């Protein structure tokens, strides 16, 4: 158990800059989820923490100790891989005992720790089996067990759930969270799945093109996304974006599509009259009603208690709305935008614009 700090970690593969300086402070026992689309550098960041890749510059500090120059073996971290990476020629017991044997622990201690971890994970009956005799979910548990018995300073998870089927994934997700809370080990969890990220993390790091676009709690990211990328990435279906301009002395925005003026609920924004903005509104916040946007609904996806409606505005811009009930028809529909749920971004930089104090 330890804290983790990353200081301006950069990584380039040849001429390709993969990480542009990532800073992160992780408290003892915290679960941090690194989430992003593929190629955003999230796995590279995790591998740098593990010591499997060397950072081009910057420092990795585990438990107050600068481990940047150390080999993976000397960092006292444990990692769960996407493909489990079990040793195929060893039994489950030997897989879990491998790291302990290398550390030269007494035989009884190893046997006890492996047994405890196996019981915790419900794989005590499988200790004699070889990995090829196990199902995907069981292999996943063995990989977890191999990490747990080591009692490391840090757990690293590299998309450990993406090879499991949907039902098992949800089950293992909850199990990982329970285990992590119970053991209290500081953890980094990499995933591309935003639901996994939202449910698992104490805090999320949303990665975008080698930058940490936002580091915050899941609800904070959902409620106050730092830029249009984060806003569009977190939340399903994705947030709607509408071009607009600043008007009425900074207290309202005028939609470009139909000239509708939307006063800000939380206060004025800085900037000239006519500053170009991007307004964001989540599909679940739209309500049916007259005097807002006029949609032409092209597709209705009923989800049971609610429905996702895909439509277009008069100028062709796509809008998604998530409305309660299953009885919706294709065709024209009016929706209103609740002002308290409006997100305001700068159109040039994509950064969030907060109300002036």
């Amino acid at each position, binding site marked *: 158990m330890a804290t983790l700090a990353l200081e301006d970690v950069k990584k380039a593969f040849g001429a390709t800059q993969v990480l542009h300086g990532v800073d992160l402070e992780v408290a003892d026992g915290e679960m941090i989820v690194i989430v992003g689309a593929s190629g955003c550098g999230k796995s590279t960041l995790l591998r740098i923490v593990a010591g499997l890749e060397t950072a081009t510059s910057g420092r990795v500090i585990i438990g107050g100790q600068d481990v940047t120059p150390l*080999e*993976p073996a000397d960092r006292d*971290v*444990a990692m769960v891989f996407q*493909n489990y*990476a079990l040793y*195929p020629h060893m039994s489950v017991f030997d897989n879990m005992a491998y790291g302990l044997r290398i*550390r030269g622990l007494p035989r009884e201690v190893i046997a006890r720790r492996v047994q405890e971890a196996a019981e915790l994970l419900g794989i005590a009956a499988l200790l004699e089996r070889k990995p090829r005799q196990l199902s995907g979910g069981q292999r996943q548990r063995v990989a977890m067990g191999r990490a747990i018995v*080591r009692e490391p300073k840090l757990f690293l998870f590299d998309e450990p759930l993406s090879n499991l089927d949907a039902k098992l994934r949800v089950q293992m997700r909850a199990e990982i969270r329970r285990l992590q809370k119970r053991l209290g080990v500081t953890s980094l969890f990499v995933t591309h799945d935003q639901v996994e990220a939202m449910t698992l993390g104490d805090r999320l790091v949303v990665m975008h093109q080698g930058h940490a676009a936002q580091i915050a709690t899941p609800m904070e990211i959902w409620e106050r996304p730092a830029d249009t990328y984060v806003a569009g990435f977190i939340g399903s279906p994705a947030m709607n974006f509408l071009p607009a301009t600043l008007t009425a002395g900074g207290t309202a925005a005028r939609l470009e599509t139909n000239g509708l003026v939307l006063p800000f609920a939380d206060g004025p924004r800085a900037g000239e009259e006519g500053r170009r903005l991007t307004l964001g509104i989540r599909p679940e916040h739209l309500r049916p009603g007259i005097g807002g946007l006029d949609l032409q609904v092209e597709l209705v996806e009923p989800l049971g208690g609610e429905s996702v409606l895909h439509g277009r505005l008069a100028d062709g811009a796509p809008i998604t709305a998530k409305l309660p009930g299953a009885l919706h028809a294709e065709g024209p529909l009016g929706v209103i935008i609740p002002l308290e749920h409006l997100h305001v971004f700068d159109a040039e930089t994509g950064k969030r614009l907060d109300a002036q104090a």
Partner: protein
Amino acid sequence: MEKKVIFKGWALPLALLLPQLVITGIFFFWPAGQAVYQSFLREDAFGLSRQFVGFENFADVLSDPTWLDALWRTGFFSASVAFLALSVALFLAVQADKHIRGANAYKTLLIWPYAVAPAIAAVLWLFMFHPNIGLFGRMLNGMGIPWNYKLNGDQAMLLIILASAWKQVSYNFIFFLAGLQSIPRSVLEAAAIDGARPARRFWTVVFPLLSPTAFFLLVVNLVYAFFDTFGVIHALTQGGPGKATETLIYRVYTDGVMNLNLGSSAAQSVILMILVIALTMVQFRFIERKVHY
């Protein structure tokens, strides 16, 4: 899941198999049958008279102390060649598997010796180690180390072991490299994170995962050392000095072709044939069952 194709009638499948059957028949079963037949006969050197003698040729061979010497010599020779060729190839493959500059050129160069005919390989080694005209031979003598494999039996054995192993390294290298590349990188990374240093990773993870390949190669190398090294020995030492480098296969040639003792030579080749069949069976048994993970 086996895929079975059903043919109607016999004609087409037979026609498709025929080329392979004819080749195997003419170049293996017929001469092998001849050898078995010959091994029960005693014939004079001019082929004027022959006599059926049952297992007498075999009894003679197996009780001949010089043949038994050759058997031990072959055992030593084959074990040395296999060990040397396997260990050098494994070392080179491990090096080639690393991310190094020019790895492709290095791999290609390593594969070349396999394309060299045994006799030519032997001539190459002869040019290097001939006591009078060989580069290293002269160098050794110049440094005061008496080197003459034409007089010293141990040196002759050393030379044919080196030459034979050198030729087989390429073959082993390809298999080891393929085996290494099929080990998932993440498994090695997991071992590194578990705290294993490179040497430990090699012996506890890489080597066990390579063992099926290694076992297959061991059998192939033994068979090679038993049978395919004739060209090397013939070009370098002709079994000499004395009988210092006379292996079983070379003795078959000496007895049959030089001394025209056809019955004994045939009996010896039949014994060799049984040996190789046994080796192959052992390999199939083990590959199928034991060496699995």
